[in-house]
């Protein structure tokens, strides 16, 4: 049987980062092919190459009878490739039928709209996937899985032969998942090829015919689902580690700095989290994207206050309802995505560093530039920030140095508890190990550090203890130096192997 899709040796780099290093992949008609890998293994990049969002640097794509070196989104659409994303991209103010019609019709401003025909077409497509949805409903009023059904109907209507589903069940309830699974099986029966991405192993075993594991931009292997079990999949995902030297702990942990007891927040999906972080200790918070790690950090920083449970700082119970209060309690939060929420690019780095400490550095609200410059110079020297000087704008620095500015801002608050969210994401290797040394030194100076990271070797190498989150709660607490496969198994929700 000729495959629907065959990728050969696809490579793709972003600057110095090699996202895909020669990936080959194949999809048969009537097959559900699961794609699995850690965060950053290259799954999203591969999908974007297939949908035409990224042009590969090398390799070929064979779709049906055509062999191409790259696709554009328009060609991908023409060749019958459709992607259903986690967050459906529909127009909320239009009806189901209008949304479907917009996708199917060639965009031409002068085309007449035929509401009757639109509704009939929508009914027909929705019936094909067994979806019980009125085409006149506004998309705004649909639940998440109903919106996904509309997306699938669009895909079918445009004659899609290849349907990509990117973590489709991430925001679905159990019941809704079963509805979706039935639709996926239905697609398979119609001879459509489905590329199914999910972190949930039980889904993969329930749905997939074959599974391909990606790691560090390479395909580790493709196996029929019957030839493989959960442990071997995890072993494939984790692989052997790249040797990298992490600074060793310098002192024994001290008193408990932060204690969480049964902390929960309905709005951010966190339930029943209990953990402790001691002074001088680095606790690594591992888990997959969406496990609730950033949400937990946001609770601790007062951005989405907890509604159940207790937070104790140095033994004292506290309520934290705003970042201001969190700062007053000695909590510092270096957020993920420093370009958006960490460093203000047009502001000089000196001003960036004093942003959280105005009342301390400038009593009376009067900014003395001498004090500010002195403080900036101190951190530029102690963190080794490479810059033209305190007056250089934040945007002039490299990623790693911006991250150091972000860290400096929080060190200036003299915190007791430092929360780092993906501290080395997107920084180069040199800056990364420098940041690791800085974090270790801060812990040695008595700071309690909670480090969220999706970089598994980093979590394993840096942490004195590893807390694994899954589905908004703590899945496991592991000692430092645990095996990667143990951490990954806990993050995926597998019972201890």
């Amino acid at each position, binding site marked *: 049987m000729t495959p629907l899709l065959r990728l050969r040796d696809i490579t793709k780099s972003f600057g110095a980062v090699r996202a895909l290093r020669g990936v080959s992949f194949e999809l048969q008609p009537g097959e559900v092919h699961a794609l699995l890998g850690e965060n950053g293994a290259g799954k999203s990049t591969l999908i974007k190459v297939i949908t035409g969002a990224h042009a590969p640097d090398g390799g070929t794509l064979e779709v049906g009878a055509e062999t191409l070196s790259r696709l554009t989104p328009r060609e991908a659409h023409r060749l019958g490739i459709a992607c259903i994303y986690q967050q459906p991209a529909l127009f909320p103010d239009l009806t189901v039928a209008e949304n479907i019609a917009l996708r199917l019709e060639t965009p031409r401003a002068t085309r007449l709209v035929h509401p009757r025909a639109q509704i009939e077409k929508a009914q027909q497509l929705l019936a094909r996937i067994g979806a019980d949805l009125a085409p006149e409903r506004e998309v705004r009023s649909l639940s998440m899985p109903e919106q996904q059904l509309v997306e699938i109907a669009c895909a079918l209507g445009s004659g899609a032969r290849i349907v990509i589903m990117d973590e489709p069940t991430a925001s679905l309830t159990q019941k809704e998942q079963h509805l979706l699974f039935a639709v996926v099986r239905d697609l398979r029966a119609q001879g459509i090829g489905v590329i199914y991405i999910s972190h949930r192993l039980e889904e993969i075993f329930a749905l997939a015919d074959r599974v391909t594991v990606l790691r560090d931009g390479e395909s580790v292997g493709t196996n029929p689902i019957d030839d493989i079990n959960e442990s071997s999949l995890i072993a494939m995902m984790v692989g052997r580690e790249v040797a990298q030297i992490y600074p060793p702990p310098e002192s024994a942990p001290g008193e408990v700095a932060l204690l969480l007891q049964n902390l929960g927040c309905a709005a951010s999906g966190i339930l029943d989290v209990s953990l402790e972080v001691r002074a001088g200790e680095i606790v690594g918070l591992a888990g997959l994207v969406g496990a609730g790690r950033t949400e937990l950090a946001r609770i601790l920083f007062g951005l989405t206050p907890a509604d159940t449970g207790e937070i104790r700082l140095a033994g004292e119970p506290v309520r934290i309802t705003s*970042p201001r209060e969190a700062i007053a309690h000695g909590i510092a939060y270096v*957020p993920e995505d420093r370009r958006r929420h*960490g460093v*203000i*690019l047009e502001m000089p780095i000196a001003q960036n560093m004093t942003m959280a400490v105005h009342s301390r550095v400038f009593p009376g609200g009067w*900014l003395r530039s001498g004090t500010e410059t002195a403080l900036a110079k101190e951190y530029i020297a102690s963190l080794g920030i490479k810059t033209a000087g305190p007056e250089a704008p934040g*945007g002039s620095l490299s990623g790693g140095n911006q991250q150091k500015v972000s860290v400096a801002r929080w060190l200036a608050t003299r915190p007791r508890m430092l929360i780092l969210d993906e501290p080395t994401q997107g920084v180069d290797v040199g800056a990364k190990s420098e940041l690791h040394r800085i974090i270790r030194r801060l812990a040695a100076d008595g700071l309690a550090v909670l480090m969220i990271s999706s970089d598994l070797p980093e979590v394993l190498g840096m942490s004195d203890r590893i807390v694994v989150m899954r589905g908004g709660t703590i899945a496991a607490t592991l000692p430092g130096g645990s095996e990667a496969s143990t951490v990954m198994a806990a993050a995926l929700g597998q019972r201890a192997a």
Partner: protein
Amino acid sequence: MKRYARELSVLGALVLILAVLAVAAPSFFQLDPLRSHFTREVPTLLVACGAALVIICRQIDISVGSQFGVCGVVTGLLAGAHVPLPLCALASIAAGAAMGAINGALVAGLRLPSIVVTLATMVIWREGLRLAQQGQFINLPADAVWFGLPLATGQTVELVAALGILAALTWASTRLTAGRYIYAVGSDAEAARLAGISPTRVTFGVFVLMGALAGLAALANAVQSPQVDPKSGTGLELKAIAAAVVGGVAVTGGRGRLWGVLCGLLLLVTINPALTYLHVAAYWEKAIQGAIILLAVVADGWRPRSA
């Protein structure tokens, strides 16, 4: 020098116009008419400072012209009832601040878009004033006009006071934490929030300050003539925003200097008398002002991101 490229190029354009005038129409440089002309623009300068701060905070306030009108009537009525002028001033500022607080509560508190909120309050204040005042002018007692001083002295006092206020606001915007917060919130409200700054409070405060400055400006305007026109301030918001934009305040928020606003305003208001003295039809004034504003926005678009 590169940091002040915008302000300096605006000043350069101003100097160029003055140089042309010095050669072609030296009679332009006479103290009394110049002083009168620039004193008339003092209210605009005060409002433009407020507008600049609002824009730096990545908001907009188009209700200032109406606020200005209401405050002018408040001043006129109180002064007409022989309330001492300092008390009139306080009342005018308080009235402006109160109207600013309403804008601020709606924009910062309820997170409504400022363009719509201030469009609504602009219409409400203006039409409310028309209903209450029926277009009637208010007579000021003689001792209130120019603070009871001779014309030339009164004008000088007002000019000096306005420059003093500009200097104070410039200092405050760069040397006080409150000023720094405005820039931080305008650059990236979420980053500011994560740094413990409350974007809600800062935004509210900026609107209150805007209103207070509109009140002060209304007073500065009221004392310039023996009658207060309840329609005064119509279109003032556009002039103020134009001065801020020409003076280098980025409409995307987070960037701009208050002394630059003075440069922008000076350039815009020198065009009219310059045209008169150069015997060019004054109809060209608005077209040239429009061209300058467009040029300023284009220059902003070309400015490299890292500047």
